[in-house]
């Protein structure tokens, strides 16, 4: 088995559904980071059989709420001095601001310049969101 060093400080995004690790990596724009980041795919998991893991060797102010939309099953561990000091269980956020773009071509957000795209959670299981302006439904495709 491939061995990845455990980190002494930083963030471990664990229990990512296989295949979604790269999506999360992209959404967090980790390819642009100037610190050590590891993306591990298809690691064995007791809970899920297989899982993806992302290790970030820094405490950042990354907007982790986004992860909850992509994969609500993940756990986030905050590591300090080689110990987990905080476990964050994510669930899809009730409100999402400025992340999703409304796909309705007739939506006011498609023509007005300074409007902030805001969406409200409609269905937790299906990860569907509703545009606060036009009610258009957005399904987060896996």
């Amino acid at each position, binding site marked *: 088995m491939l061995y990845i060093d455990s980190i002494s400080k930083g963030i471990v995004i664990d229990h990512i559904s296989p295949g979604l690790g790269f999506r999360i990596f992209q959404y967090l724009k980790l390819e642009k980071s100037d610190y050590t980041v590891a993306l591990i795919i298809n690691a064995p998991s007791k809970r899920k059989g297989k899982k993806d893991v992302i290790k970030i060797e820094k405490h950042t102010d990354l907007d982790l709420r986004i992860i909850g939309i992509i994969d609500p099953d993940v756990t986030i561990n905050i590591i300090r001095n080689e110990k987990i000091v905080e476990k964050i269980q994510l669930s899809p956020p009730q409100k999402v601001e400025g992340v999703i773009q409304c796909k309705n071509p007739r939506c*006011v957000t*498609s023509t*007005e310049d*300074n409007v902030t795209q805001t969406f409200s959670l409609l269905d937790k299981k299906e990860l569907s969101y509703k545009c*606060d*302006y*036009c*009610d258009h439904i957005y399904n987060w495709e896996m």
Partner: protein
Amino acid sequence: MKHLIDSMDLSIEELEELFTLSKEIMKDEDKYRFSCEKKLMSTLFYEPSTRTRFSFEAAMLRLGGKVIGFSEASTSSASKGESLPDTIRTVGSYVDLIVMRHPKEGAPRYASLTSDVPIINAGDGGHQHPTQTLTDLLTIIEIKGKIENQTIGLCGDLKFGRTVHSLIKSLSKYEGINFILISPPELKIPEYIKKEILLKESIPFIEVETLEEVMGDIDVLYMTRVQKERFFNEADYVRLKDTYILDNKKLISAKKDLAILHPLPRVNEISPEVDSDPRAVYFKQAKYGMYVRMALIIKMLGAI
């Protein structure tokens, strides 16, 4: 109520207050002739809708108020590229109430975020048209004496018809409502309406493809237009359109106290021979629309 953007913004209590006031105005209009004497209303119509604009303007003028506005975007500052919030802030500093029609869905909601004066949504794209829903509800109350415990038939384009969607949502707040949804398979009610409203609230409904098979069960029949452009080809349209045209023959099996509604303008979905049938109430409906807008303006301006 600060703004009226979505028909669901109104609780049953607020709806009842509006309908009670509408009835009072109809009974003694003279009493309300100066209710809005010192008030100014603006009609910002970014797309033309003469019918709706006249209804609002007539309502305000009958209350003694004054109106300014435009009736298409090309004559407004929007054509010079001004943002919606800027227009709303400017106009809001002149007037007491803004009535807004806009082709973009959600535009009135966006406008309300920066507006100090109340905004009434007079239609935003295919999205919402709450004062049409108020009109429909008042018509049902006036003609049938109540909203509760009735079978409501909705016929025609149930997929794209926004008035149908918000009417279903509002009616589902009342007790004992049954829906019969009559449409070609291509124009059935959207899944989200079924899921979010009908199934979620356990409201009985059936979906059928012809009017004849259900006519005798319906208390209120809401007709809508079946537009040619909704079909992929002319042949489908020609094949289907007659199925959804109401005429005297289809009314043979209907209840004696049926109420036939239509949001107007009508094209050919109700044959003119039906107009003289006492059950046809769509022209009265237009009049109720003005009265319910009078009540709404009074409420929103606190002019009582």
